């Protein structure tokens, strides 16, 4: 189960990252660093899904290159920590990607149902 979970995760990484960052916080727009994102995914799925650094950072840098994320590097305890936040364009992309994905899930669900259930009467 683990391996196919990871397989599905690969295609939805951008959607997940954009969505996590799109959640509002009391202090304003959300900003997260890489490790925080992997922890958030791990905690919310109760350990079902784990995001490896090998998968996460290429996606983060790609989204930054596409102008969907802004970065801010801060020194924390002698290390450089890079925070990511959504740009206005990134916000729109998050909404768009989520609705696309929900449509996709509905389509897959109707594909997975046995044909008998679909026939009326």
């Amino acid at each position: 189960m683990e391996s196919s979970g990871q397989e599905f995760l690969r295609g939805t990484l951008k959607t997940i990252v954009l969505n996590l960052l799109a959640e509002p916080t009391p202090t304003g727009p959300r900003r997260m660093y890489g490790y925080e994102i992997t922890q958030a995914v791990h905690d919310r799925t109760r350990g079902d899904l784990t995001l490896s650094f090998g998968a996460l950072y290429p996606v983060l840098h790609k989204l930054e290159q596409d102008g969907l994320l802004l970065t801010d590097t801060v020194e924390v305890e002698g290390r450089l920590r890079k925070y990511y936040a959504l740009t206005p364009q990134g916000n729109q992309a998050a909404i768009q990607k989520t609705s696309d994905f929900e449509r996709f899930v509905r389509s897959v669900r109707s594909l997975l149902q046995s044909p008998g259930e679909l026939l009326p009467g």
Partner: protein
Amino acid sequence: MEKLNDGQVATLRRHLLKTGTSDALIDELIDHLACEVEHYVWIGLPFDKALETVTDQATHTAVKHLRERYQVELTMSDEQLQKASLDDIVFQFRNKAYGAYDLRQSYRLTMRNAIIMAVSFCLMLVAILDGLNRKEWSYVSLTGLAWILGVAGMTYAGVSWYLARVREQQFSV
């Protein structure tokens, strides 16, 4: 939560450098792995054991996989490729700060200036030798013309080289 000290962070950096992590990612990965080590230390592992667990994850294969994925994800789009020079393509995932990129960028200008200087120098030399031979000097002659062209070429190449250097220093500051 227990924080890693500078020496422990340096150990992580050495490990990542050894596995061939690219410059674009190293600082972020250090922070990432340091957070993981801190997490393991927090749940009760001794530092050495925590470090071992984390470095076992960040092996050559994992880092190589990361580098490959990175290059696939961040490669130039067709539109960017249309505009990119050969140097841009060659240096896309290489260290531009090292100096080779700058040398290649300024190669044409350096070459042009060097050729102008060499030709000008020869013209001036010929003019001087010719003048010494004849023991007389006139600007309104073939020798005079060669001298003037030589001085002009030298000045042009010199000024152009100087301006390029000034521009370079402005960028690097």
